[in-house]
């Protein structure tokens, strides 16, 4: 029993580790692919070289990130089987086709046009090249569509019947557009856009701090802050709607996120506290009376269920998701503030010259990644102890692989990921440290001369 428990925890750790590493890359590439499409469109439309320079600057970063996303994603497509065989067997009929459609409609599209996007500027016309960029961007969004449909189905299963222990799809429309899917998709795509915007903004701010007159860096910061100003508030609304949807379908998750133990009317909003699963209390509570009910039910006196109303073995781990949720929301609010500040500074024409704001934008660079991870931890840990919410427990989902095998493979993943993705992150930072030029022409010193890098922009204007 102890052995199987350990193996179960190790298998969960392995999935958490590999998927957490993976999500960081798509969260960035979804936004960056769209950003590249916008940059190329601006270049084609306005004809200003600085847009082509920006495109090439971010294309290198995109290629590196995308490569890491591909290899870490390949691991995910086999994780379901290696460590979660019974889950794959029982939920495969529903989830498998969704992932199959992801491969058919998204992965091939991205991979097929990525080559043209990266290497094809000399070989195809400008219009076709732009088309390739758009296809890659659309591919990343389609990929998000299917994978979030699959994930949402595990959270709020719908459109299925159970036959011989297997989940059998009865209504595909209901499976795909399950109750939490539209909210989760919106929330995640906006998160990806914000994540990218804050990275782009931080890179722009970094180079503006070094050289206030850098035109390309100014454009980066400006575009990023437009996103912050408009999308961050939208994200707050989307997040609130997603929360209300969770309250309707997974109230235990909300109770654990809020640290509420007793069912009560006019529940407080706990700002700070230490939820304790043993004593069933939230210690050192700092709370605003009634606000919890107002946010969750949009009524000061609304009733909010507490965790005690579920048996102990059906409660998600409150201490973790209480804090991961607050971390995510805190970053979201900081993003909204950045957006508002940017509007104020922009109106005074001081956006690119205000030192403290540039430093703040630099600090906010990685905030999107932290928020994305915190959000995913909240929603996935909040789904526990179920893998398919309310229907199949995580404990039943595990493959008959012994603890040492799972531990060994986990250790191998940790070592390889830290080495490979550590180096990759370092190379990304190196690329970002290089100041964007007004016309991106020369390759970095020490590299072989590469035709695509040294072709001056006008030479690319042939049909």
């Amino acid at each position, binding site marked *: 029993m102890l052995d199987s428990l350990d193996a179960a925890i190790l298998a969960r750790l392995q999935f958490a580790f590999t998927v957490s590493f993976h999500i960081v890359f798509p969260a960035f590439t979804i936004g960056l692919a769209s950003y590249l499409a916008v940059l190329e469109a601006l270049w084609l439309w306005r004809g200003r070289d600085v847009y082509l320079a920006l495109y090439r600057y971010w294309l290198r970063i995109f290629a590196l990130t995308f490569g890491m996303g591909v290899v870490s994603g390949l691991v995910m497509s086999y994780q379901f089987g290696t460590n979660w065989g019974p889950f794959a067997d029982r939920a*495969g009929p529903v989830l498998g086709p969704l992932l199959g459609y992801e*491969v058919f409609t998204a992965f091939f599209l991205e991979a097929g*046009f990525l080559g043209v996007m990266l290497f094809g500027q000399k070989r195809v016309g400008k219009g076709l090249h732009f088309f390739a960029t758009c296809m890659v961007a659309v591919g990343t969004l389609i990929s998000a569509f299917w994978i979030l449909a699959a994930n949402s189905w595990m959270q709020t299963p719908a459109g299925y019947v159970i036959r011989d222990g297997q989940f059998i799809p009865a209504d595909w429309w209901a499976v795909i557009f399950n109750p939490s899917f539209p909210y989760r998709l919106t929330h995640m795509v906006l998160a990806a856009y914000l994540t990218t915007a804050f990275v782009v903004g931080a890179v722009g701010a970094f180079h503006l701090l070094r050289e206030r007159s850098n035109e390309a860096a100014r454009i980066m910061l400006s575009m990023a802050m437009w996103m912050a100003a408009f999308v961050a508030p939208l994200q707050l609304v989307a997040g609130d709607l997603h929360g209300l949807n969770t309250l309707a379908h997974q109230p235990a998750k909300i109770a654990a996120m809020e640290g509420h133990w007793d069912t009560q009317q006019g529940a407080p909003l706990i700002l700070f506290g230490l939820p304790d699963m043993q004593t069933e209390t939230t210690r050192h509570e700092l709370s605003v009376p009634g606000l919890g009910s107002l946010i969750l039910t949009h009524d000061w006196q609304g009733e909010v269920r507490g965790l005690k109303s579920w048996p102990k073995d059906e409660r998600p781990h409150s201490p973790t998701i209480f804090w991961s949720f607050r971390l995510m929301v805190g970053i979201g609010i900081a993003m909204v503030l950045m957006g508002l500040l940017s509007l104020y500074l922009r109106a005074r024409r001081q956006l690119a010259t205000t030192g403290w704001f540039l430093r703040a934008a630099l600090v906010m660079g990685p905030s999107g990644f932290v928020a994305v991870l915190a959000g995913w931890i909240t929603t996935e840990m909040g789904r526990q102890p179920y893998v398919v919410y309310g229907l199949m427990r995580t404990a039943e989902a595990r493959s008959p692989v012994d603890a040492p095998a799972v531990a060994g493979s986990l250790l191998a993943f940790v070592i390889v990921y830290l080495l490979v993705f550590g180096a990759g992150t370092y190379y990304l930072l190196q690329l970002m440290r290089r100041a964007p030029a007004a016309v991106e022409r020369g390759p970095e010193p020490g590299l072989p001369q590469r035709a695509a890098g040294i072709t001056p922009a006008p030479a690319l204007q042939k049909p």
Partner: protein
Amino acid sequence: MTLDLPLIWAALIAIAVLMYVVMDGFDLGIGILFPFFKEHRDRTAMMNSIAPVWDGNETWLILGGGGLFAVFPLAYSILMTAFYAPLIIMLLALIFRGVAFEFRFRDPRHQSFWDLGFTGGSIVATVAQGIVLGAFVQGIEVDGRSYAGGWFGWLTPFSLFTGLALLCGYALLGATWLVLKTEGALHARANRLAQRLAIGMIVAIVAVSIWTPQFNLVIAARWFAWPNIAYLAPVPILVAATAWALLRSLSLKRDVQPFLLSLVLFVLSFVGLTISLFPYIVPPTVTIWDAAGPPESLGFLLVGAVVLLPIILGYTAYAYWVFRGKVNADDGYH
């Protein structure tokens, strides 16, 4: 409607696996052959010859895994558990191989390290795939709906041999791809390597063809019983003819034929395997009909496959067309 959905899907997944084997086969072959080319410019040209397409090629592996999950979830569940160690090793190796395409250009000081990762990753991934193939042919111990064998059930002399055989085969694909895509000294070197690898590949095919019926009487009966032997005779005859044509085209210093004939050799080997194993998806107990998901799932995804696969093949062909012709060391974007 009486479509045999599991049969159609088995064919589609077999095609996906075959597409993966031949397409990522030459990519991995380039990595395997890296140690034979020390010149920096040669290595860069070799990498540039596959850089625009490797990602699409590897997507077929995701389709193989994802497709199995989608339409044969029971087989996916059993096979992934049975081949736990080699699959995880393969995935880790493919990580090193995949990131090398970017990293080696980003870090000149550690280029030799990432080149080593590229070669090592390609070799280890290939051997792991070959081992999985051999263990698959030998059969998997199953109890109920789960794998019942041990941790090292996949490790046998036969599976080790198929691991090395695949290494030789992918290297052949890589070498003939270089014959097709490069010029000058690199081209000549690739041709000489391809001649030796072609002989190795032919020996491996013969060895596996003799070895397999020894341990599996069902497979032996399928090939050698009358009248099957008459119907199936074209397969070995075609293999022999292709092998001869391949060796001849290499000694005549042809550019295109060696690669195409190597692909034909792979396709024929694959057909041979299919004849041996059909209709088992987890040999020797679970058939494609046992493992198939419900018709609701198979039908739903089949609609997508029928509509989308031709489109995918179309733009994949287009990508290859854009990057047609000989490559050199200056074709990157980095």
